[in-house]
């Protein structure tokens, strides 16, 4: 494993598989236990440095660190020196002086975790940077797919929605490709980046054509405000062309699953009956997020398991 987890490309196939296997071991070790806690990272300090509000991701990392017995400090940009204009570098040096072993960072600017990694000695875990990557989301998605379908190699994953602005899509394309899955991106052309052709993924504008050939459909959150910048004409038209409703779900193969990184816009990219169906893994994804993040922190800070 590299010292930092900044993007999916930091993990080769062996490392990515190790993270997933470790997450499974941790889950097993904790299953049925009354005290859901391992002593592995006792005495180590993990800082959650969040420049964006993201309660669910922060809580997931916090829980992961605490279940490994690490000390956790939540450093929120709001109400801290950051909001008074402290630079990222000064914040990094402050955390460094306090002796943090790992910094989990969420930032609105692409590449901020890369910058941070230049300034701290400990490990940096990217918890989402701008429109760049969100590698632990991709790991928990891969974990969920493997758990449900029993494999990743050759699994056909269709990712639908605002690929242009999605760090989830970027990390998933990279990681799932590394793990042998076949990724197809579906979006209106306005929400695909120029240059998407260089990604290890197929691209289509026709959702209905790919659904029968999808083992996994991953719906991305689409902000209705995008229509104000003419990415699409209206929420209704978007939903009609790219939303996953019950009718479209019926076109999927029998054992196909439906994923969403949350938070969902019910009625926009995903219909309520789909989100709540047995195919939906949305709640499992949240639970798996804690196990996978425990595995990441464990491997970065504690070394490979014996």
């Amino acid at each position, binding site marked *: 494993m590299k010292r930092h987890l900044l993007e999916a490309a930091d993990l080769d196939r062996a490392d990515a598989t190790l993270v997933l296997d470790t997450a499974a071991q941790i889950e097993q070790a904790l299953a049925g236990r009354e005290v859901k806690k391992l002593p592995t990272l006792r005495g180590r300090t993990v800082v959650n440095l969040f420049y964006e509000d993201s309660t669910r991701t922060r809580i997931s990392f916090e829980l992961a660190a605490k279940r490994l017995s690490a000390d956790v400090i939540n450093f929120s940009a709001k109400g801290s020196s950051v909001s008074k204009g402290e*630079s*990222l*570098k000064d914040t990094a040096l402050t955390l460094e002086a306090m002796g943090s072993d790992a910094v989990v960072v969420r*930032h609105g*600017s*692409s*590449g*901020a975790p*890369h*910058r941070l990694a230049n300034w701290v000695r400990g490990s940096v875990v990217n918890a989402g*940077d*701008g*429109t*760049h*990557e969100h590698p632990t989301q991709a790991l928990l998605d891969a974990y969920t797919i493997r758990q449900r379908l029993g494999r990743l190699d050759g699994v056909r994953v269709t990712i639908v929605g605002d690929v242009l602005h999605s*760090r989830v899509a*970027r990390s998933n394309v990279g990681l799932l490709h590394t793990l042998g899955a076949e990724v197809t991106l579906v979006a209106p052309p306005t929400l695909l*980046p*120029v*240059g*998407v*052709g*260089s*990604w290890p993924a197929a691209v289509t504008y026709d959702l209905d054509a790919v659904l029968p050939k999808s083992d996994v459909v991953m719906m991305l959150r689409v902000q209705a405000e995008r229509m104000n910048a003419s990415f699409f004409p209206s929420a209704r038209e978007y939903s009609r062309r790219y939303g996953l409703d019950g009718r479209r779900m019926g076109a999927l193969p029998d054992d196909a699953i439906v994923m969403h990184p949350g938070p969902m816009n019910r009625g926009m990219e995903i219909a309520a009956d789909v989100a709540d169906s047995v195919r939906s893994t949305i709640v499992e994804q949240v639970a798996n997020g804690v196990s996978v993040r425990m595995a990441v922190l464990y491997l970065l800070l504690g070394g490979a398991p014996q």
Partner: protein
Amino acid sequence: MATSYLIKGARPLGGDPADILVKDGRIAAIGESLSATGAAVVEAGGLVALPGLVDLHTHLREPGREDAETVETGSRAAALGGFTAVHAMANTDPVADTAGVVEQVWRLGQEAGLVDVVPVGAVTVGLTGERLAELGAMADSAARVRVFSDDGSCVSDPALMRRALEYVKAFDGVVAQHAEEPRLTAGAQMHEGDRSARLGLTGWPAAAEEAIIARDVLLAEHVGARLHVCHVSTAGSVEILRWAKSRGVQVTAEVTPHHLLLTDACAESYDPVFKVNPPLRTDADVEALRAGLADGTIDAVGTDHAPHAVEDKESEWAQARPGMLGLEQALSVVIETMVEPGRLDWAGVADRMSVRPAAIGRLTGLGDRAHGRPLAPGEPANLVLVDPASRAVVDPAALASRSRNSPYAGRELPGRVVATFLRGVPTVLDGKAVR
């Protein structure tokens, strides 16, 4: 200090070695085995002599951001880069949009005395793109402004651009356009392409530059005016310029050293030292720019020297200001990218870095104060001696600029400026600024 210098054994424009006698601010003689009593001797064996370089595009930051650069520190950086004249861009604080501000900058340049600082006037009041600044007043001022630019912002309103092009004809001025359609570059961070897609940085499409250049050459043709295009960065722009020139449009263009050498691959580090506007482009663009500079489609090298304080660069990519240093490495980059590969000879370097930029800025006809003149007896003694064989690793801490945002840090480049003379007075000797 001596008033005459005998430069021994330099190769004018890379030709046969000759001695150059500099006296009373002029080139007194060029020939073999010259001698002159009382002249200080400068041993220049193996050095190439070029006319003093002229930059069409420098940001000196004064007034307003003297923490990043001053007229004096920027002038020293320019002299060390072999320049004897630099055009100081107008995006200062206050903006150089009145005779008062351009005269202030001009006067500071004269006081520093290391290069001729030629102020550029803003096209529009406050660079806001809304109404014309008093272009005539700046032209008639002591600063004698001939180049007008809103650089940093594009004069995007087509009607206003047309009027600006027309209006400056009255005093033989030129509008230097920062070609960037702002509606296509909202929030843009880097070249739009494969790398921006992967890095999650908002793309700056080549078409945003090319669309403005295409529009402006048509406007310049229509009204019979001169147009200069700043920092051309794409292969498509070179094609449009080639087409326009073939039609006889009075258009000139410059390319920066960094666009000749670096690509958008630099953005993969997310180090904002590589953030610049227009952004670093692709290998294919770099190749087209080199070809354009070689065949003359691109007239000049303009540094777009853009000093920034540490806090404006040591940040997240999106928060950092765009721009990079260029004056002290410009000639080295041209040697690396154009001379060593055989795409430009020394006469070509003199043409693209001295003669043509001086002509665009209307500096060639200023008598004693002219720039971009031939290396010939009787001409003002503005010249630079460069050792093309010398190679060195760029150390930002050693630069004369007050800022440190050099994209060439740690990179080995050829060509050392050994001496620079401004009207017969050395501003650089033995590779060091005289003051």
